[in-house]
């Protein structure tokens, strides 16, 4: 130990070993460690692009299973615009998803009608009226709300909301558009609150101060200053909520009644695109027409959510550029 501490200059043999004479051979310049590092960096790059590979993979494999029908027997116009869905009929098999599209649409629209005011209202409350402990607690609770699995929501729809809706609205069946929409609203609110709050946080404080200095009330500040300046972020928040609601499967499968009809009121049961796949994929034999049509519905869903998410992303990018 002490010897080491005293030794300040290297011995001549150590110096000779340390100083290279002439150009280094390539194996000295790139020792094993450097090769390992190079390999690792390539592995990191590969993982980096993996997300792209997976998105293409999803599209490719879902498309591959459904392609036979999509380019073959399926008449796309009839598929999209008729409401007869009889995939297992013995005499006359018909694949029309109009009722399913309307089912998904009605549940989503009603869910958004409930979720957008509450989600954005809560975002405004969290961002403008709260601070410190209260804010942290609220954000944590909303995060926990987002963590509840969709199958648990579906169970709540059946066991809690179903009797409640029957009681309150005197409905014959509590598993209907309203039930599904309430669940979807609660499920998509957390994402709206967190993205919406980010958008409001991005509005500079000087804007708020300027509004207050001009004598405006809180309401006026919110309506005239905050909402217009955070408009894109709030729009992205709503779009992400829509994406979540359209793609949700288990909760709507369990809570919307899963009956094939075009709803006339919010108390009618419906069936959605996602729920149809979940309910029928187990019964359809692999490679059959029915099985392939379910994959075509998958392509339809993938396309819808892809564009909704793309729109949300472009809106967010638009804000960042400003």
């Amino acid at each position, binding site marked *: 130990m002490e010897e080491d501490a005293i030794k300040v200059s290297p011995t001549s043999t150590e110096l000779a070993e340390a100083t290279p004479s002439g150009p280094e051979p390539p194996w000295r310049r790139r020792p094993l460690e450097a090769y390992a590092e190079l390999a690792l960096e390539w592995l990191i790059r590969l993982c980096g692009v993996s997300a792209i590979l997976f998105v293409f993979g999803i599209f490719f494999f879902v498309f591959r299973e459904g392609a036979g029908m999509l380019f073959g027997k399926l008449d796309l116009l009839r598929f999209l615009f008729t409401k007869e869905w009889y995939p297992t009929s013995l005499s006359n098999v018909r694949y029309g998803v109009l009722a399913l599209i309307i089912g998904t649409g009605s549940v989503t629209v009603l869910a958004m009608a409930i979720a957008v005011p509450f989600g954005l209202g809560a975002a405004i409350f969290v961002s403008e009226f709260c601070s410190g402990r209260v804010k942290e607690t609220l954000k944590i609770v909303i995060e926990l709300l987002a963590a509840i699995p969709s199958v648990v929501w579906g169970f709540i729809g059946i066991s809690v909301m179903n009797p409640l809706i029957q009681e309150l609205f005197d409905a014959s069946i509590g598993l209907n558009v309203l039930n599904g929409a309430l669940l979807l609203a609660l499920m998509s*609110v957390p994402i709206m609150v967190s993205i919406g709050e980010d958008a409001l946080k991005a509005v500079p404080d000087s804007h708020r101060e300027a509004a207050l200095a001009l004598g405006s009330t809180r309401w006026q500040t919110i309506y005239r200053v905050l909402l217009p300046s955070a408009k894109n972020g709030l729009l992205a928040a709503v779009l992400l909520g829509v994406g979540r609601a359209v793609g949700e*499967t288990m909760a709507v499968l369990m809570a919307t009644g899963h009956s094939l009809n075009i709803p006339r009121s919010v108390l009618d049961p419906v069936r959605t695109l996602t729920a149809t796949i979940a309910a029928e994929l187990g019964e359809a034999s692999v490679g059959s027409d029915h099985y392939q049509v379910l994959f075509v519905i998958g392509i339809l869903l993938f396309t819808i959510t892809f564009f909704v998410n793309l729109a949300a992303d472009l809106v967010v990018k638009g804000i960042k550029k400003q």
Partner: protein
Amino acid sequence: MTTFAETPFVRARKRNELFAKLVFGAMAALLVTPLLSIVAYLVIQGAPLLSLDFLVSNPSNGMRAGGIWSALLGTIYLVTLSLLIAAPIGVLAAVYLNEYAEDNWFTRVINLAVVNLAGVPSIVHALFGLGAFVLAAGIGRSVLAASLTLSIMTLPVIIASTKEALSSVPRAFREACWNVGATRWQTIRGIVLPNSVSGILTGVILQVSRSAGETAPVMFTGAIFFRPIPEGDPFAYSIFDQCMALSMHLFSVTTQVNGAPPALPYATAVVLLGTVLAVNATAIGLRVYLRSRKKW
């Protein structure tokens, strides 16, 4: 001390302020109450069945009695395996995006792909898992195929939170390291990762909670309606077996089993919800603790 008397204008203003606060507060409160009331209601309803015995005994009598052992173990298998697959890929992908990628169109495409991967409906992930892993790769319906599907589905969770953890390490730390001659990887290994490891851990924990609750993606790729296994044997499944899953078990006992005691689905839901919320609370606690200790 003299104070000015409140003019009607000031009073109106204060009322207005309070009213605004109440309205928005009520909106927030309406979101918070469901969580608390739902958890309380489920626990009360499921209470008669909740015991250790419920966790470690198999479902019996056509899933009308017994516990949830085989479903619980199946979920543990699925979560562990999907974590082992998703965590390395997700963390390395985030390292790439935060440490290597330049700000160009290609990086934007990757980020867009991550966002879209997060937005793909779970049932489409199920179709993908069925088409790619079960059929094309020939794995068949198994723990492995279901875990692969889950891991791709939950990848964005890990990527997003790891990226956040990495980007919170100040750039000056990296520059100091580069300036003493360290290579990029040495910097990442020695400085960036140790300083963000707990943030990464938070993301990994969130992935666990997400994959434990998912139903649709495992329903067609590896989860099975009913399968008894030896009670108390933690290695009862092989990764090429089909397994039961807690989330799917809740779906089955709610919708497909008639005549089960009313407390049974509630108790199952409490176990599933309790697991997920506990895991999430751990992640949140970790994050709060980290933020309080942060030195920069």
